[in-house]
């Protein structure tokens, strides 16, 4: 009896100890993740002179002045860049999710000769990154006068194998064909059925993929930097790179931090409100075990 209770006490102590270690690790990693963003926010509230003066851990009162300076900067037109990025990202996310769902539905709901081949093809090209065809892509855009245009940034979104795969997995788990059959009996056309019955049923998948494709497009730097040359067409990541290329020592540092904050703020804001939903969306469709 006695040894038994001391055993369980020991086990309990071990558990408490290991829990403490785990929490210490988790807190440490969280601080690692948050530190740079904390510094970003603090430093965006400080004036250039104050920033040059030394390290501070607490916010100062210069936030609005920095915001005004960054917003009205003559060489980096950040409001324009944000509007451009927003347009490209919004258009891309709508096209990507709609057409990926359409493609997934085409391969989920119908039987046809090339069905298997088409599915295999999309899966096969899923992990091929865009960068390896970028050279030809850039060349074609220059040849057909599609530089300084958003079309080559938006339209390719119609063919997004990863989003397709997610949609297909999702449909396989939530979309019984009986419903489609029932709609047919009621005289609903195939296209109508997709738009009015299927899309509402896969709303969570649509929402999560809209967020992901928006974020991906908002953050995209490589191709836009090769295709957009005119200042008024540039998107946010290109402007951030310009900021880096400018003579750093001449810059108002408060403004620099404000630019960075503005670049990441829209995504950060969405994430803070929808993190639970977004994190859930990371796994579904991306791994098969």
């Amino acid at each position, binding site marked *: 009896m006695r040894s038994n209770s001391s055993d369980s006490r020991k086990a309990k102590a071990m558990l408490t100890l290991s829990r403490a270690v*785990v929490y210490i690790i988790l807190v440490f990693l*969280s601080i690692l993740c948050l530190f740079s963003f904390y510094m970003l926010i603090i430093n965006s509230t400080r004036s250039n002179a104050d920033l040059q003066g030394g390290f501070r851990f607490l916010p100062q009162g210069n936030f609005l002045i920095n915001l005004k300076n960054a917003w009205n900067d003559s060489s980096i037109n950040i409001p324009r860049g944000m509007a451009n990025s927003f347009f490209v990202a919004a258009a891309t996310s709508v096209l990507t999710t709609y057409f990926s769902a359409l493609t997934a539905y085409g391969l989920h709901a119908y039987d046809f000769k090339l069905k298997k081949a088409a599915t295999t093809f999309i899966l096969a090209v899923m992990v091929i990154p865009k*960068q390896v065809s970028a050279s030809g892509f850039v060349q074609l855009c220059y040849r057909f006068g599609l530089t300084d245009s958003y079309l080559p940034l938006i339209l390719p979104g119609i063919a997004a194998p990863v989003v397709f795969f997610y949609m297909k997995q999702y449909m396989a788990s939530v979309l019984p064909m009986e419903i489609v059959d029932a709609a047919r009996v009621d005289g609903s056309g195939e296209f109508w059925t997709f738009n009015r019955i299927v899309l509402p049923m896969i709303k969570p998948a649509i929402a999560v993929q809209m967020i992901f494709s928006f974020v991906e497009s908002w953050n995209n730097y490589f191709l836009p930097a090769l295709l957009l040359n005119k200042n008024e067409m540039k998107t946010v990541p290109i402007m*951030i790179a310009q900021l880096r290329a400018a003579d750093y020592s001449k810059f108002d540092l408060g403004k620099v931090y404000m630019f960075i904050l503005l*670049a990441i703020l829209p995504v950060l804001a969405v994430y803070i409100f929808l993190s639970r939903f977004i994190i859930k969306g990371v796994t579904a469709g991306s791994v098969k075990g």
Partner: protein
Amino acid sequence: MQTTAKPARVKRKKGISYAKWGYLFILPFFVTYSVFSLAPQVLTIYNSFFENYREGLTQVGPKFVGFQNYVKLFTPDKNGAVSILKFAGNTMIMWIEGAVPQVLIALLLSVFFTSYRLKIRGQQFFKTVIYMPNLIMASAFSMLFFTLFSNVGPVNQLLLQTGWIDEAIPFFDKRVTVRGLVATMNFLMWFGNTTILLMAGIMGIDQNLFEAANIDGANSVQVFFRVTLPLLMPVLVYTVITALIGGLQMFDVPQVLTNGAGTPNRSSTTLIMYLNNFLKTSKNYGMAGAVSVIIFIITGLLSILVFKSLTKDDN
């Protein structure tokens, strides 16, 4: 994420074939893919056999040169270094420096989060925090690190003010610190994502096995090495290969951090930065094509592994 449900088949009602709708619905995808991915891909490969670039205002080529671009790519320069191998090496070193801790820590965290014994509280908070850097604009994140770690940046200021160092550490002048910063950023951006993927993998394992191991008196270390790890292997392999494919595309972070120069002495220039240099001003589609083909072959081989792991249990 097992797909247990078999794809439902439409019951054909007497003589009505819906096949044409299937073709119609997948048509936009295939047209778009052909125009914006397949055609550029073919053109990229085709161009790798041509001399085709701009020098100032004059256009050189296109002129068929066979494998000359590839030969040039692997010819050592006057210092005896082969650029593409050097940059492939840089890419791999920076990837490994970030990916090893990324996978190990993610493995550790995913076990913590799924443990019945530990019952970690505040999981949602921790997951939210560690996943966040994954969504942040890589170029902005890199610019942020550039400002934080500059000679007059807050990190140096803090170290100076607390007396840890006597003069500022020039983070961007040393190979080891530049690569270290790139790897740190990649680590921060990806370990949360990997944690979540591995958690899903662990939760996909038959829970009875853990219970059985517990009843048999296995401790948590034994459970991890004898049950969790072997059963998680397919997911782990998938995660590592996709991370490797992603790592080969490393661009935004080192590009912005070093302003495209790959300083010091091009020790942080990655393969895609090399590609970017050919495309940026000289529009050297010949050399860019050759570099792309090399990257394409490597990623292609890796992709086959991923594809196999994805289709293995699909009949």
